[in-house]
């Protein structure tokens, strides 16, 4: 009986600790109004040196165009395992893409960066359209993009 109680305590402690390691994050990407087709976007995480860590979302359904998301493509090696189940439609001019996901706490306030690469058919590719440090302080504050992204905001 005593063993059972100890095991249950350990189990619930580990379950609780796992829960506290992830946080719900909402990424909002508003696009500029431009003339052209829907934009392909890669939203991903890098460390402070800009080295690729993880893919958060890919907007755009045809994988043959993913190579135009140049920074992400180089980091991810375009491996399908990097974007399985986390890709969707491209985003048209002036629209807003909102992605919600669970992210490990270890990425927050520890020097990691959120990046967005963007590309539109027959128009230029934008590596690092957005680069923003992932911090509690920066949450909720819109950042301007350099390419097709008008503003990018993350919040917890």
């Amino acid at each position, binding site marked *: 009986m005593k063993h059972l109680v100890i095991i249950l305590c350990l189990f619930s402690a580990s379950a609780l600790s796992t829960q506290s390691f992830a946080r719900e994050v909402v990424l909002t990407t508003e696009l500029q109004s431009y003339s052209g087709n829907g934009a392909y976007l890669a939203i991903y995480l890098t460390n402070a040196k800009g080295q690729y860590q993880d893919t*958060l*979302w890919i907007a755009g359904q*045809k994988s043959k165009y993913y190579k135009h998301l140049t920074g992400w493509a180089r980091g991810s090696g375009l491996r399908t395992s990097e974007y*399985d189940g986390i890709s969707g439609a491209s985003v048209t001019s002036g629209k*807003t893409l909102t*992605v919600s996901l669970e*992210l490990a706490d270890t990425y927050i306030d520890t020097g990691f960066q959120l990046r967005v690469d963007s590309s539109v058919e027959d128009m230029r590719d934008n590596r690092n359209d957005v680069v923003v440090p992932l911090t509690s302080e920066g949450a909720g504050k819109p950042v301007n993009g350099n390419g097709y992204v008008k503003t990018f905001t993350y919040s917890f």
Partner: protein
Amino acid sequence: MKNAIKNISNNKRITAFIASCLLSGTVLAKDDCTDPVTDWQPKEQLRQIMEDKGWDVKRIKVDDGCYEIKGLDRNGHKVEAKFSPASLRVIELEIKFNGSGDTSDYLDLGIQYSPEESGAKMNSKNKAAKHKAKAIID
């Protein structure tokens, strides 16, 4: 001839095996056609069908999981068409008329080939999101 057919069928099996190894446990981003490779009909069959309709087939390639033909139709109009590789049904057609177009020529591009309903086994897409991410666009 039998040997040749056997070789083609073996090659097909090898191709299918390699494809299934590459695809196992993974899901590719969306393609226009999702017919299983094992059900694909040979390119030459499609070429023959379209040449019988008077097309001058310049090129057949695979794009987004479909067969894509570029060529000229019997009236000399430039055409570009996508076909489902299993059923050889046309799914997209682009024609550049030279001032004397008549769409009736294209309305019978229906079913050319129906291989016992293609086995009806589409790729099952077992998506397992890494982050359980959801997205909306508005």
